[in-house]
């Protein structure tokens, strides 16, 4: 046997353990799930073929349509927001020369926590009388002072900027020197206002149901908005790292050329940074889609903190039909929903790949 043939055999041998794992726990499992979706199995009986009944019942089930719409809306909102935020954060950290490693570590810390621990902390945070509500209460009660602060800041900043623009060229609206001056003046002014008590301060007590509500905002239940907030918190750091790596591989020459063409920071960002990051963005979006479509842990841990229709996602629907609380197992329905979830994920991933974000960077 020559080297090539030996390599063949060794190749298969090396790959064998992984293939066994993949074959049993993925391929065989997928096929079995497909088969179960056409039966009435309930974990104890012998499965009997019932055709498309499960799919029909599933489509008629209001819980299913809710789970589907929740999952899709959640996926869209979280993927978009976490991609944008991760990019912005990466750009900011990239702009810092010293101690970049330190900031990377600091930002990455929240994402090492398990979803269970994280959800428990957020459950406590988002209680009806919890800390989040107190923060919102504080902001709402102090609204006049916050408004005054912003107004003074903007006024001074704009005055200084337009004043400078009369004499100089290339003064950006967000000029940092003027912004610092404006900030300091606004702080002092607001403090003086507070001392003189010219503006009203309110003392209202609030109770906001972040979790235990059936309200919907823009196709997504309010509960899931709170969960989305929590999700973004934990996933943005990991995605930021991906963007950071991508940012560091953009040649500086591109930026220099853009600067010579007279492009400001914002234009450089839009026309140099974003296009160069296309492959990374694709990876980030794909990861985001895959992760959000599978959202299960948080729903399970929320438990009775929120009504079922406000927190149900497809993944949880699958589990809840396999092991329902207080009723017999419906493996058939569960498998039907599982097949649907798998197909849905594949469609969305390959759709977004085909639609626009290509693998190659466009130069």
């Amino acid at each position, binding site marked *: 046997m020559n080297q090539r043939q030996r390599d063949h055999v060794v190749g298969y041998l090396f790959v064998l353990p992984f293939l066994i794992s993949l074959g049993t726990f993925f391929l065989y499992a997928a096929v079995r799930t497909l088969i179960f979706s056409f039966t009435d199995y309930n*974990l*104890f009986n012998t499965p009997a073929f019932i055709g498309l009944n499960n799919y029909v*019942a599933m489509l008629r089930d*209001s819980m299913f349509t809710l789970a589907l719409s929740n999952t899709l809306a959640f996926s869209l909102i979280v993927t978009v927001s976490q991609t944008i935020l991760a990019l912005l954060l990466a750009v900011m950290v990239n702009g810092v020369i010293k101690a970049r490693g330190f900031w990377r570590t600091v930002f990455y810390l929240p994402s090492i926590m398990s979803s269970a621990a994280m959800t428990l902390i957020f459950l406590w945070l988002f*209680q*009806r*009388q919890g800390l989040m509500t107190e923060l919102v209460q504080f902001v709402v009660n102090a609204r006049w002072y916050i408004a005054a602060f912003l107004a003074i800041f903007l006024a001074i900043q704009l005055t200084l900027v337009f004043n400078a623009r009369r004499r100089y060229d290339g003064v950006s609206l967000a000029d940092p020197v003027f912004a610092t001056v404006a900030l300091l003046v606004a702080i002092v002014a607001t403090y003086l206002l507070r001392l003189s008590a010219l503006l009203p301060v309110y003392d209202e007590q609030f*109770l906001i*149901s972040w979790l*235990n*509500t*059936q*309200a919907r905002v823009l196709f997504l239940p309010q509960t899931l908005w709170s969960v989305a907030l929590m999700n973004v918190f934990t996933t943005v750091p990991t995605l930021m790292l991906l963007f950071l790596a991508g940012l560091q591989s953009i040649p500086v020459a591109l930026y220099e050329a853009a600067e010579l063409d007279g492009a400001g920071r914002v234009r450089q960002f839009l026309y140099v940074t974003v296009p160069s990051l296309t492959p990374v963005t694709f990876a980030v979006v794909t990861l985001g889609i895959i992760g959000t479509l599978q959202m299960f842990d948080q729903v399970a841990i929320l438990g*009775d903190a929120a*009504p*079922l*229709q406000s927190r149900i996602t497809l993944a949880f629907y699958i589990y809840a039909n396999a*092991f*329902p*609380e*207080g*009723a*017999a*197992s419906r493996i058939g329905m569960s498998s039907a929903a599982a097949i649907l979830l798998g197909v849905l994920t594949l469609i969305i991933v390959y759709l977004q790949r085909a639609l626009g974000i290509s693998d190659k960077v466009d130069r």
Partner: protein
Amino acid sequence: MHKTKILLAGLSLLALTSAASAVDVRISGWGGAEVALVNGLITDVLAEDLKAADINVVYEPVDGDFSQFITNALSAGTAPDLFYTDIFWSRAAFGTGKVEPTTADTSPFAPNLIDAFTYDGKVMALPKDFNTLALQYNKDIFDDAGVAYPTDDETWATLQDKLVAIHAKLPDVNGLCVVPDYARFAAFALGSGWEPFNAEGKTVLDDNFKRAFAWYTGLVPAGAAVAAADVGEGWTGGCFTKELTAVAVEGAWIIGGIRDGAPNLNWGTARIPKDPESGQAGNLIFTVGWTVNADSAVKDAAQKVAELLTSEKAQQWVLEQGLALPSRSALVDNPWLQGDTPEQTVNRVVFAGLSDGNVEPFFFGDLGGAWMEPINTALNSVLTGEADVDTALAAAQAKFDGMAAQKQ
């Protein structure tokens, strides 16, 4: 000398064999206040009987949704030999075919409890206790507000007046914590004369139901109550132990909550108030039974343990711990129930609730807990202000009609 040696050897051999022949029976139930009770039974009250029967009981309480755990365990073949079955989801467990009917003599037990656990003509679980709902009240709050304590003849209207008066006098205290849960609301829904399943087996939310629903959800705007979620609590007992409310609607299990959260609370119990129109009160019977696993290797021992755990001695002891009422008819006229401590009072009232007015078991056939969902959702929508009474009830009725259609 020689003889004693043989005797000793013989005795030790006997001891060894008897120790070796001690059978291990795994039992399981849910966590919470139950744990101390069952553990006390096994290690204290029944210790000698278990030793005499050569049985070693291994108790593994489970926290979380017990029915999910049992379904999973029965399917996996790792279920305990003896486990709790709540009447609420008993159908799901019995329907798996992995449950062994009881071999004990069921005649000493209360008939309606035995009926609750009968499936396919066989008694599948031995009822260990039961509970109903009652009205607990905080004597200090009533004293501070100068309002008379609730009596056993309260009606919905008189109770509402008392709660409104308390809230007016003490603004930081509310009358009752209202929960969107059929398991408590039923005390009023059933009192109105409504029945969960009509003659055709369908659920119709008639005018009686609407009257009870409107009164229950109207307590909050009337100033007599507050939604439990609004004060961050999940059950009426939670508000009660934190002394946020004057009354609570719970069963004897509230004793555990009070012992932990407010050990010095000064409280009493009265019967569920009656509907002024129908003149009746409503109530639910909650009951739990011990079920034997059909796949168990030690079925006979498990049956024996079930019998011991529900014996008169055991039930008398549990009664005196105050957490639940005995399922044996003979223990009904118990002198312990006549005492005056808050625990004895609540148990006495809970016991009276068994036969007072329109009483239904907490059980919904094959539908299980899903049957309560439409009513709970309707309650929640009105309590959170997201819908009005008519819209919410119409939505609930539509869901019930859908359920009935699906069953066919």
